[in-house]
C-alpha cells in the first residue's frame, strides 16, 4: 500500500507550493480516481506519487511517502521503479524508440532491472496477456493507434510487476473505441491485485472504473468518496469538473420544473 501523508511540493523556481498537505492511500486491487479542473494539481500529484518529483524533476517536497510503512523518499528512482510506476498523457512520447516490436518495448523495463532472460520473457508475456494485447506482440510499436500505444506503455510498466500503477490522463487523447480498450485493461489490472491511481478530466471514465474518487482543487484534496457521490456533488461541478451525463440531465430536468417522478423515470 502506497501512502502519501501530508505531502506538499513546490516546483524548482516555483513561487508557491503546487501541492498542499495531501494525504492519499492507494490500496492494492483498488482504483482511485483523481478528478480536477485543468492545472488543479492532478498531474503534479501523479508525478509526486510516482516518485518522479522531486527525483527527476527537482523541486522541494515535505511530508511522508511510505510503502507498506517504510519511508521511500530516500530510495533511488530505479529501486522505487520496482514498486511504483507512472504513465503520462501522450503514449507516443513514452516509447523507448529502441524496440522493433511491441514485445521488445514491454521487455524494456524488466530488462533494465537485470532479471534473468527467462524471467524478462515471462513477465513481458504476462503483462501483454493482462492488458489483452498478445496479438500485437510482433507489431512495430510506432505504427499503432493511440489506444493500442497506450496499452503497450501500460504493459511495459506492468511487466515490472510494480503493485502500484499511476496513470496521468490515460484516455485524454483517445477516441471512444481506444478509451474502452484502455478502461477494460485498467479494470483487469486492478482485479489482478495492482493498486491504480488514475487522474482524468473525463468524469465518465472515472465513474466507469474507479472504486473511489478524490477531487483536487488548488493543490488540495477537497473531497473524497464514491464516484457517484463525489462527481454529482454541486461543489465538484463548481470546481469545473465535468458532470456525469445522468446527473446533468437530472439537474436540467428539475430546473425546468418537471414533475419529480418524470425526472426520476428519465434518469
Amino acid at each position: 500500500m502506497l501512502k502519501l501523508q501530508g505531502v506538499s511540493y513546490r516546483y524548482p523556481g516555483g513561487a508557491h507550493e503546487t501541492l498542499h498537505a495531501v494525504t492519499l492511500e492507494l490500496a492494492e486491487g483498488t482504483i482511485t480516481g483523481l478528478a480536477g479542473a485543468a492545472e488543479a494539481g492532478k498531474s503534479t500529484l501523479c508525478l509526486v506519487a510516482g516518485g518522479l518529483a522531486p527525483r527527476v524533476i527537482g523541486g522541494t517536497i515535505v511530508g511522508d511517502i511510505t510503502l507498506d510503512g517504510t519511508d521511500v523518499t530516500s530510495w533511488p528512482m530505479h529501486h522505487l521503479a520496482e514498486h511504483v510506476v507512472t504513465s503520462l498523457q501522450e503514449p507516443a512520447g513514452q516509447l523507448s524508440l529502441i524496440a522493433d516490436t511491441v514485445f521488445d518495448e514491454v521487455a524494456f523495463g524488466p530488462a533494465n532491472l537485470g532479471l534473468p532472460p527467462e524471467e524478462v520473457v515471462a513477465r513481458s508475456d504476462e503483462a501483454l496477456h493482462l492488458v489483452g494485447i498478445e496479438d500485437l506482440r510482433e507489431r512495430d510499436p510506432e505504427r499503432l493507434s493511440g489506444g493500442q500505444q497506450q496499452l503497450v506503455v501500460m504493459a511495459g510498466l506492468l511487466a515490472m510487476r510494480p503493485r502500484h500503477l499511476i496513470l496521468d490522463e490515460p484516455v485524454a487523447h483517445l477516441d471512444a473505441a481506444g478509451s474502452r480498450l484502455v478502461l477494460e485493461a485498467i479494470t483487469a489490472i486492478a482485479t489482478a491485485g495492482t493498486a491504480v491511481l488514475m487522474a482524468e478530466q473525463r468524469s465518465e471514465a472515472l465513474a466507469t472504473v474507479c472504486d473511489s474518487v478524490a477531487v483536487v482543487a488548488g493543490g488540495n484534496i477537497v473531497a473524497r468518496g464514491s464516484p457517484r457521490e463525489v462527481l454529482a456533488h454541486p461543489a465538484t461541478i463548481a470546481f469545473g469538473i465535468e458532470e456525469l451525463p445522468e446527473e446533468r440531465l437530472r439537474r436540467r430536468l428539475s430546473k425546468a420544473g418537471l414533475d419529480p417522478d418524470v425526472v426520476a423515470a428519465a434518469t
Partner: protein
Amino acid sequence: MTELRLEGVTYEYPAGVRALDGVDLVIPAGGSLALIGANGSGKTTLARHLDGLLRPTHGRVLIDGEDAATFSVARLAAKVGICFQQPDRQIFQRVVRGEVEFGARRLGASEEEAFARAKEALEAVGLADDLGRHPDDLGETRRKLLTIASVLAMRTSVVVLDEPTTGLDAHGAGRIGGIIRALHEEGRSVVGISHDIRFVAETFDRVVLLDRGRVVLDGTPAEVFAERAWPRLRASGLEPPHAAITGARLGLGSTPTEADVVAALLDREASAVR
C-alpha cells in the same frame, strides 16, 4: 464569406492507402459542420484538403467556386485557417503574444492590428493575462487554447478546428463551444473534428460521419443521432450521445442534446394536461 465544395475527392497516400474515396461535400458560407468517425476514417485528411495543404489524387476542391489547386497554401490561408491537433507542432515563439500574432502578421496585418486581434483572441479563449508569458510555462491545456487563439487571430472566413476539446476540462470545452457559436453568428463557417460526441451534438448544426474515407451520414444532429442511425454509428466505434439514448428509451423521438430531452418532456407534460 467563403463556400467550400468537395467534388468526388479521392486521396491516396504515397504508400497506396486510400484515405478519401470519392467525397462529395458542400460547406456553405456561414455553415457549422462537425466531422466524426473512428481513427483513420479520413477526418484529418479531409480537413487538410480544405486549405490546399493536401491536393486530391482525383476530384476537386472548390473555394468560392475556384479550384484550390490553383492557389498557394499561403494564399488560401487567408480564407481557411486550420488549428492542428498537436499544439507543440507549431509553437515556437518566446512569448504568447508573438505566437498569436504570427498567423495574423503572415496574412499582412500591421503590428497594431495583429496586437489588437491577438488580445481579442486571447480574451476569447481565456488567456488574456498570459500575454507576456513563455508558452512552455503554460500547461498542456493552455497551450491547446493558445493554438486555437492563434487561428482565431487570423480572422479567416472558414475556421477548421482539429480535436479542439482534447485535454480541456469542462470550463475549457464550454468556452470553445461558445467561441464556435460566436463564429457561426458572425457568419463565418466552422468545421470541427471531434471524438467528443456530446460536444458535437450541442455545438454544430450539421454532422458528417466518415468511414474509411467515405461520407456515410450527413445531416442535422437529430438525423445523425436518431435511433435508426445508431447501428451505423456503432459500426464506426462511436456511441450515440447519452441524451439521444435517454430520449429513445422514453419514446421522445430523436433528442441529441439534453435541451431536446427537456423540451420533449415539457411538450409531453403540456399535451398530457390538455
